[in-house]
């Protein structure tokens, strides 16, 4: 049975898992302010989107803006000699390195005893969740730029992490071949290719989000219901979430600052949701040399997942020239377009679970339940000057293959050493969830961003798994299948590269206390309470 603590504690632990980047290295290279590309870093303005999609270059005449000229890795005339020479490229004149550090302070409401009870596992000392807490975040290094000829690069890494929710190591690391379609005479910017590890082309980025806390729907994994108190049994343990970076290849085209935009990515299926560094076979050498002490395989599945997205952005200026420009012209200066963007996305994969079972002959073998799953949804974004309203809906469905024994009889979950060995699977009730978010950003002043956001995740399985009256405690949780969160926030750019952010995360009716009714002796739910969190973040990049 999945204890309630697994479901409740992430609400706290995930509350400060921001992982966002602005690139001060570009400020150095071009001698320009962060606000050239960012509204409220790391949120990109229209020019920043164009800069990124051009391969971290100015969309036109990039070389004239560079204050530190690139180093030539071969004279341009070498192109005439090719293929009898290496095609000349460039590297940035100075290392394109940026650094980021953040600190947090959070205040959590609610009586401590409730947290103590909710968080404990039987026989363990209860976890204390303090009312107030200072936390250092992480110190990150990141680099990005262009090698000339449309080859862009990006790599970011948290080199120092702390806090329960932080995950160190590589974030994104990829090469992008911009406008590769020009080689086969496709329309400009209609085909680019990205290879490496990258955040999927999500409708609204998590990696470059201005929010302190991540979008709940992006962090939602699909874990099936297994609870003896409820009849529903689901053998689903799909750790995939949209917030995870994928390893693979992506083709994309169009622009996110006007017109169409699409992307299709093929990435590793990684059901376990963790890096498979330990997946090092002594018999099979991987590309990175697992048999020789390398890092092994990244995936624990032989299948690949596919993610596709299409969106269209309608810039709404009447003047055609302004409408089609990177930024709209205005009487008091260029600014982001007034626009309406509509999009859709679809992710398909095969969640894989390996069980030690038996084959038809009774011999022991590993059985793999490959459960097809998908995530699908739509999104919108409306922008008027410095007001941006946007939202996303997601529906998730995982096939549910329940293990059966050699006689075709269902094996009660969870499996234990006493369970009969699985011999196969039958399809049962799928595990589903849905939800999304709506957010409004308003740049009150160029240095003040006001934010209002609603997150909602509806997962019956989560609720069932949380219906766990821990021994010795009177607490149930969660209360409903839908977890709502309202998060007003405000952010201040103290300097273009220094930001103070505040969020107040309001979670209505998360858990209830179970009491005995003195009149009839029956157990009843009472006193729903909320767990709200105020988070303050202070961060800088340079």
């Amino acid at each position, binding site marked *: 049975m999945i204890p309630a603590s697994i479901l409740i504690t992430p609400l706290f632990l995930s509350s400060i898992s921001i992982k966002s980047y602005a690139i001060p290295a570009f400020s150095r290279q071009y001698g320009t302010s962060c606000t*050239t590309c960012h509204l409220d870093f790391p949120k990109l303005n229209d*020019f920043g989107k164009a800069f990124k999609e051009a391969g971290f270059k100015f969309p036109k005449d990039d070389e004239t803006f560079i*204050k530190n000229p690139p180093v030539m890795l071969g004279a341009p005339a070498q192109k005439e000699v090719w293929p009898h020479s290496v095609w000349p490229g460039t590297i940035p004149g100075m290392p394109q390195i940026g650094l980021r550090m953040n600190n947090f302070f959070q205040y959590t409401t609610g009586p401590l005893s409730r947290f103590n009870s909710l968080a404990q596992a039987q026989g363990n000392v209860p976890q204390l969740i303090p009312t107030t807490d200072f936390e250092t975040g992480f110190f990150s290094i990141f680099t990005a730029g262009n090698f000339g000829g449309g080859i862009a690069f990006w790599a970011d890494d948290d080199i120092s992490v702390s806090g329960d929710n932080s995950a160190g190591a590589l974030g994104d690391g990829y090469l992008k071949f911009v406008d590769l379609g020009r080689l086969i005479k496709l329309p400009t910017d209609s085909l680019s290719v990205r290879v490496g590890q990258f955040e999927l082309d999500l409708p609204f980025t998590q990696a470059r989000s201005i929010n302190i806390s991540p979008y709940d729907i992006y962090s939602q994994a699909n874990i099936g219901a297994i609870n003896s108190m409820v009849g529903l049994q689901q053998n689903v343990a799909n750790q995939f979430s949209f917030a995870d970076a994928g390893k693979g290849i992506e083709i994309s085209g169009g622009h996110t600052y006007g017109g169409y935009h699409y992307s299709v990515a093929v990435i590793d299926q990684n059901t376990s949701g963790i890096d498979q560094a330990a997946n090092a076979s002594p018999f099979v050498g991987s590309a990175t040399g697992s048999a020789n002490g390398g890092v092994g395989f990244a995936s624990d599945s032989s299948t690949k997942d596919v993610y596709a997205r299409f969106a269209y952005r309608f810039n709404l200026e009447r003047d055609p020239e302004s409408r089609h420009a*990177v930024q709209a012209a205005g*009487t008091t*200066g260029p600014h982001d377009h007034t626009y309406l963007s509509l999009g859709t996305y679809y992710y398909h994969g095969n969640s894989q679970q390996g069980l030690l079972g038996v084959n038809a002959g009774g011999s022991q073998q590993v059985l793999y339940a490959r459960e097809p799953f998908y995530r699908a949804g739509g999104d919108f974004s409306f922008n008027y000057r410095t007001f941006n309203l946007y939202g996303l809906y997601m529906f998730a469905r995982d096939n549910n293959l329940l293990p059966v024994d050699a006689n075709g009889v269902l094996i009660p979950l969870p499996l234990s050493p006493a369970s009969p060995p699985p011999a196969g699977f039958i399809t049962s009730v799928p595990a589903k969830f849905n939800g999304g978010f709506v957010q409004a950003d308003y740049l009150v002043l160029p240095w003040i961003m006001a934010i209002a956001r609603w997150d909602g995740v509806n997962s019956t399985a989560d609720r069932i798994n949380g219906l766990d009256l821990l021994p010795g405690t009177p607490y149930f949780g969660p209360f409903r299948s839908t977890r709502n969160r309202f998060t007003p926030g405000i952010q201040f750019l103290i300097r273009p590269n220094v930001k103070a952010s505040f969020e107040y995360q309001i979670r209505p009716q998360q858990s209830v206390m179970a009491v005995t009714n003195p009149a009839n002796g029956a157990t009843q739910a009472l006193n729903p309470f909320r767990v709200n969190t105020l988070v303050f973040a202070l961060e800088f990049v340079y």
Partner: protein
Amino acid sequence: MTRLVVVLLAGAVAIQAANISGKVSAGKGSSVVYVDAIAGKTFPAPTKNYVMDQKQLLFVPHILVVQVGTTVEFLNSDKVAHNIFWPNIGGNKKLTHNLGTWPTGQKRDFKFDNPGVVPLLCNVHPEMSGFVIVSPTPYFAETDADGSFKIADVPAGSYTVVAWHEGSKTQSKPVTVGGDVTVDFALSK
């Protein structure tokens, strides 16, 4: 490089005209020295226009000195959108103005009818900074690399000479021109 601008008045008598020269000690970059407004004296507006360019995310030149009444052509030579505005002229916030934005290669004109320092800004690229110094008289000069200046052909008389340097306090000194005269300034922040 010293940039010296001399404007001869129509009908002005060269007799007794002299030079005001000297040196301005200030921080990096050039300074501007000009003869302040002369009571009861007006000067015809220049017919020549000057250009302030926006190029490679910079105002070029960084400092442009013009006589009051001069029209300045603001050019965008970059392949990105720019904007030009100034929050005040000579500290007078009522004279704030926003020129808007315009396409690459095009100009937008503005005639400066009020003397004073015009701090130029771009609301798209906040690091961009430039200055138009609008002199109330045609007697002005920009210092060279070592801070030296020469204002030529100033008629005889008593004047107030003003020295300006970016980021420093402006300084004024009385000068009486009968022949060539020297006046030095030491500007501090």
